[in-house]
């Protein structure tokens, strides 16, 4: 279904966020004296940009580093190294990674987060008015009436009745709580919203409501989203561009249509192949990867994906590939990207079968 989608300004809009060589390593400590014996390379040299008004999705399985990346961007975690350049309302570029704490607070107004778990993201002891108004209160809006007015405005924006203002979170369903979380995130009119798996914990029929809401809000308010998810179907519905992560690195970054139709990295191909398609007539031979997701504290040498990759050659075992630009806006981290012809999913049409099939483990 090609709904009338507003023209996307993404191609020419200015960049609002520029992440460069971001690293976040967690030390592993052993022994009585807590000596450092290793590092968990949760985020290992990640770079991407987000333009104003666009949605970039970070996709990957457990341990890939997408959640850690999202927390670094908001400085909920302090990066080990790298730069996170954010363009403020005033037009200045600030590096969030190294900003002193005092300057961080005013900046926080412009970047907010939507959390995954609707049950732990709201303080059960505060009314939803207090929850939504808190960002206003701590940022200087002293007048109670002013805050309440704004809360009503926000509740309207997320389609919750104002009659619920005095209720506590326990009175709401999961989907409604997510709406409250979204209202809170929007209270200060942020330019960038980091959504950390915002629909993973919701029922399917409610997911659709929240996804639509996020898209509508983006159009209305000109928001930029960094969308973290593990579900590729959800990603297809909300993203302009998609970054696939594996064990702390971005292995592919491309516009949505391109990456789904014709991925350039074998892991992306395997991910797409693994997603069950809700149409029994589209059953296909799937690529079943062997082995388990690599351990970020001890990743394989060379290309981290090589032990599971159906196309691996000797070079992959020894030499780590760089993230290279291969087509317009399409980057992949694979030595063989140019020569492989990988299969993806076409909208509504035939599924492009993968050329090289892997043995079922």
């Amino acid at each position, binding site marked *: *279904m*090609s*709904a009338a*989608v507003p023209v*996307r300004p993404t191609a020419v809009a200015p960049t609002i966020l520029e992440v460069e060589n971001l690293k976040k390593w967690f030390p592993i400590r052993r022994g009585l004296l807590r000596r450092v014996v290793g590092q968990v390379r949760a985020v290992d040299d990640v770079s991407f940009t987000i333009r104003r008004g666009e*949605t970039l999705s970070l996709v990957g*399985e*457990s341990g890939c580093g997408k959640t850690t990346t999202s927390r670094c961007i908001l400085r909920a975690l302090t990066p080990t190294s790298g730069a996170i350049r954010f363009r403020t309302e005033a037009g200045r570029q600030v590096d969030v990674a190294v900003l002193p704490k005092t300057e961080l607070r005013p900046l926080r107004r412009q970047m907010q987060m939507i959390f995954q778990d609707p049950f732990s993201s709201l303080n059960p002891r505060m009314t939803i008015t207090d929850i939504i108004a808190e960002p206003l209160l701590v940022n200087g809006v002293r007048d109670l009436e002013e805050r309440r007015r704004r809360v009503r405005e926000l509740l309207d924006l997320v389609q919750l009745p104002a009659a619920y203002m005095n209720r506590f979170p326990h009175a709401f*369903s*999961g*989907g*409604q709580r997510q709406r409250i979380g979204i209202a809170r995130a929007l209270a200060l009119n942020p330019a960038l919203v980091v959504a950390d798996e915002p629909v993973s914990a919701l*029922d*399917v*029929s*409610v*997911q*659709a*409501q929240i*996804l*639509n809401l996020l*898209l509508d809000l983006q159009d209305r308010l000109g928001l930029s989203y960094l969308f973290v998810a*593990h*579900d*590729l*179907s*959800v990603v*297809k*519905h*909300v*993203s*302009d561009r998609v970054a696939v992560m594996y064990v702390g690195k971005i292995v592919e970054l491309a516009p*949505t*249509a391109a990456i*789904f139709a014709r991925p350039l990295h074998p892991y992306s191909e*395997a*991910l*797409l*192949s*693994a*997603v*069950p*398609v*809700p*149409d*029994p*007539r*589209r*059953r296909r031979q*799937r690529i*079943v*990867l062997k082995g*388990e*997701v690599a351990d970020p504290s001890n990743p394989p040498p060379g290309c981290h994906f090589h032990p599971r990759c159906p196309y691996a050659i000797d070079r992959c075992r020894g030499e780590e590939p760089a993230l290279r630009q291969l087509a317009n806006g399409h980057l992949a981290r694979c030595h063989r990207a140019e020569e492989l012809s990988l299969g993806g*999913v*076409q*909208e*509504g049409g035939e599924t492009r079968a993968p050329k090289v099939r892997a043995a*079922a*483990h």
Partner: protein
Amino acid sequence: MAEPILSVRGLQTWFHQDEGIVRAVDGASFDLEPGRTLGIVGESGCGKSVTARSILRIVERPGRVEGGQILLRRADGRVTDLARLDGQGREMRAIRGGEIGYVFQEPMSSLSSFHTIGNQLIEAIRLHAALGKRAARERGVELLSLVGIPRPAQRIDSYSFELSGGLRQRVMIALALAAEPRILIADEPTTALDVTTQAQILDLIRRLQDERDLAVILITHDMGVIAEMTDDVVVMYLGRDVERGPVDAIFHEPKHPYTRSLLRSIPSVLATPRSRLRTVEGSIPHPYNRPAGCPFHPRCPDAMPGLCERSLPGAVALGERREASCFLHEKPASGATAPVPTLLEPRA
């Protein structure tokens, strides 16, 4: 058409809580045929997990199977109503594992951390077969190899926490198949796993089904998994089955408004990027607040005022193996619904 190996009729499982009675399952009926996969799909509160646990009579207290029939055709041909058996009794224990295997949702918490997987496997094997320890252990290694665990002879002595999620789920499957059951019930077997691991596990289940001619009941909320894995589907909502049929018919000719709304609202990799989804209005009611009449009527785009909020629609046969519980399909004059022929008659 083969006779079903398992037939559930009008199953009711209620939870008697202080605040009231929660009718987790309140009228579920479906058939499972040998060698085929039946998918039970629904969202939270629909009762799919409770249905599966009711079949094996392992519903946790204060839940109880209150009514209905669970007809199992045994290996020797006779039919037993599991709902009538003593839940703790000998016969039911022999059936658990021996005739029906169960794979749990959370591999992390469903395996004991205090015993090696070998211990658990051998226990399961010896409960249903008179084998000595050595022979049981050999069988255990065979089973591990069957489910694709590398180096099974060494792994059999590992503890569950030493294994990854995918491997643990394979062990769960091995446990479920230890006593060579003819039916396998898998309750959301891949929900807690990564998508590539999910592909591995589903692939494994399908292969095992082919090799052993298992009848599989697959419980999930993921319509994609249903489309990939099942032959027949039961759609549940708030404790009742609202539609049944072959998977192709369910996806391409859904008859119940809930099924239609659900199919329209699921995100899909086949969609146009950034396309809006059609939503189902409202949210799933709290079990204490069951709507009167048809449980779906407050959210139904086709609700008929005066009828749907007052009466409960019965199951209407719409073809071979095809049923929907909706007044849209009922013949208004007769009022009563055409009863679905029971394929399995309970014999004394």
